[in-house]
């Protein structure tokens, strides 16, 4: 028999109200911890996702949008930059590197970045952590090469040697149910002439390698003649009946891309992209433009015109040398680019600070909400204990008869309320851990923003300690009531 056992017995004797108050406190604690932790994790994740890019240039209307589009692949910018502008910017400064990016195509809802091999060679998706291409595999070289981010590979099951069609336009998010608009073909499909009716874009997701040797990036008619027998080239995009009548998104069967590499996970949103050659991207766009103009379609990337050779953005890095003030150099590069009214230049770091400045006010609402729930939890602890004192006066009187001091009675009740706080807080930390993991998973699969579902230990300790103290304080009034319980009156026989 111990004091603690007395307290636990008292708690379990009113298990329903104990559970309810513990849950109330747990929810508040979980809310507070996840708000504080996710805010920090979110900021870290965004900052990390910037990688080693110093500046973003695009035709977007605002710097924040330029960063969200250029680095976080939110939307393809409306106003593209011409190739000559790209060349001009690239030559305007002794950049460490300058990489053009073309956003606007997608594959099963994953964004495709048309770019140069430098994107995988020089741009680091996280600072100090360069891309790594899984073996066997290589960087993009030819116009119809594509390298898959690790999440893309995992989600589609595609691997090196597989072929795929890209969609012009960002497509519909996976959750929209329109995934599979974009077909990939595997050479294996050709081996099965009975494959007719059930071709739904998912049944060829194997890693079939092209064992026919007749792929040149344009000639894939063979596959579909098997399946449909009515495929006549360019004038319909009704590939397997999945493209909508309104014509968007637009499947380009004219160009087959070949997977030449798969990237190792980087733990950033960059794992959700497909890296394609910029010429291949241009080629897709050219098909649309030429078709609309009623012209015969281009046969190769060499035929493309300046109007086709557009990019949606540029990533830039100023040289960083030991002993040199690189931030001064960055500042002067930034100022110079800003003088050009036809482009928007943005520093990702600054824009992320701005973004989180906006988000912070929203956080405050949630933190206030958490504190509100915590306080109401504390009040309910007070009420529950106060009422239980009414019922337990006899029991307190018995303890006094046995020699328990008033002060010890006070301590028992305070321990009891603090215990509710401890259980609630620990439960809340558990909820927060599970919840953060869940939220991180949802966030990663929906937006590709990778946040580490770690709980901020310092703030958690503070919150847990604060909760226990608050719960103990909530027990003061009932404890004083217990302290004052007159003994003799409560030992009279029950009649």
């Amino acid at each position: 028999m111990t004091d603690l056992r007395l307290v636990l017995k008292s708690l379990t004797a009113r298990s329903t109200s104990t559970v309810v108050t513990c849950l109330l406190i747990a929810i508040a604690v979980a809310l507070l911890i996840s708000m504080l932790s996710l805010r920090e994790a979110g900021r870290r994740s965004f900052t990390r996702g910037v990688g080693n890019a110093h500046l973003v240039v695009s035709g977007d209307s605002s710097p924040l949008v330029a960063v969200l589009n250029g680095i976080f692949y939110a939307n393809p910018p409306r106003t593209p930059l011409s190739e000559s502008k790209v060349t001009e910017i690239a030559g305007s400064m002794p950049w460490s590197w300058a990489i053009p990016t073309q956003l606007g195509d997608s594959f099963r809802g994953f964004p495709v970045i048309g770019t140069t091999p430098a994107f995988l060679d020089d741009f680091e998706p996280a600072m100090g952590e360069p891309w790594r291409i899984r073996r066997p595999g290589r960087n993009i070289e030819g116009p119809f090469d594509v390298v898959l981010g690790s999440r893309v590979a995992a989600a589609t099951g595609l691997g090196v040697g597989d072929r795929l069609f890209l969609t012009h336009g960002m497509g519909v998010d996976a959750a929209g149910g329109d995934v599979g608009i974009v077909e990939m073909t595997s050479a294996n499909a050709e081996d099965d002439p009975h494959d007719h009716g059930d071709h739904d874009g998912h049944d060829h997701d194997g890693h079939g390698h092209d064992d026919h040797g007749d792929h040149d990036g344009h000639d894939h008619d063979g596959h579909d003649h098997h399946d449909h027998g009515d495929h006549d080239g360019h004038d319909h995009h009704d590939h397997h009946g999945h493209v909508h009548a309104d014509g968007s998104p637009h499947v380009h069967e004219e160009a087959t891309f070949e997977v030449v590499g798969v990237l190792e996970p980087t733990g950033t949103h960059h794992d959700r992209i497909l890296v394609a050659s910029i010429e291949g991207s241009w080629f897709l766009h050219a098909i649309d433009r030429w078709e609309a103009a009623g012209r015969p379609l281009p046969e190769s990337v060499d035929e493309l015109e300046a109007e086709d050779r557009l990019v949606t953005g540029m990533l830039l890095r100023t040289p960083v040398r030991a002993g040199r003030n690189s931030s001064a150099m960055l500042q002067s590069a930034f100022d110079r680019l800003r003088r050009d009214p036809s482009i928007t230049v943005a520093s990702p770091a600054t824009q992320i600070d701005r973004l989180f400045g906006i988000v912070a006010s929203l956080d405050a609402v949630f933190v206030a909400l958490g504190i509100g729930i915590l306080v109401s939890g504390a009040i309910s602890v007070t009420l529950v204990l106060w009422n239980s004192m009414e019922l337990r006066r006899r029991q307190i009187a018995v303890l006094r008869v046995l020699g328990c001091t008033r002060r010890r009675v006070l301590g028992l009740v305070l321990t009891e309320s603090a215990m509710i706080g401890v259980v609630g807080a620990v439960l809340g930390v558990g909820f927060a851990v599970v919840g953060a993991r869940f939220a991180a998973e949802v966030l990663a699969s929906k937006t590709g923003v990778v946040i580490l579902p770690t709980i901020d230990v310092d703030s958690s300790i503070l919150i847990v300690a604060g909760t226990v103290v608050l719960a103990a304080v909530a027990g003061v009034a009932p404890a004083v009531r217990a302290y004052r319980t007159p003994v003799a009156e409560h030992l009279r026989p029950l009649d």
Partner: protein
Amino acid sequence: MDPALDIRDLHFRRPGGFEIDVPELRIAAGEQVLLTGPSGCGKSTLLMLAAGLLDLGAGSISIAGQAISEVRGAARDALRADRVGMIFQTHHLLPGMTARENVGAALLFGGVPKGRHAEIADGLLNRLQVEPGTRIDRLSVGQQQRVAIARALAGEPSIILADEPTAALDPEHAANAIALLQEICRERGAALLLTSHDPSLESSFERVIRFSDLARSEEPTS
């Protein structure tokens, strides 16, 4: 040896106007006394005073030579924990706990080392033929009363103050319970002051005091 209970010139007055005056009451160590009187005469009040659970207006009360009326607060509680055991008409056991835990609760506040609690509890309960591990709500009324007896005796008190302990029992069980209580008090060397409004118990006690005599009396009752 100091008397188990020594009351001198006690005066107590409730706010409601009820008054008790006890010029002298002395119970020797190990002595067994029956205090009788009609309901409402003040028997329970006197036991509460003796246990230090009510503050007296004047006079002094000593338990085994220690003046419980002279100390207050924690010191008085400690004296009660070590020297006094109480039994009531209603058993007042802690619900949801085992017989062993209930007896152990009495040791929580006294000077007995923690390691001996279970051993003491089990010894007493076995002596009283109650299974120590049983939850008290599974016990019969008679067994519950025996757990209450064990709890009162656990701290090796100098005196047991029993306030109408048999009022809830039928006469046969009541007689057995009294016999058992007297026997175990003798074994453990505790004095016994037992109150009852039932005169039929008088034959069981070598010393019987009527409350009216006690209160009115100007001279020692023994």
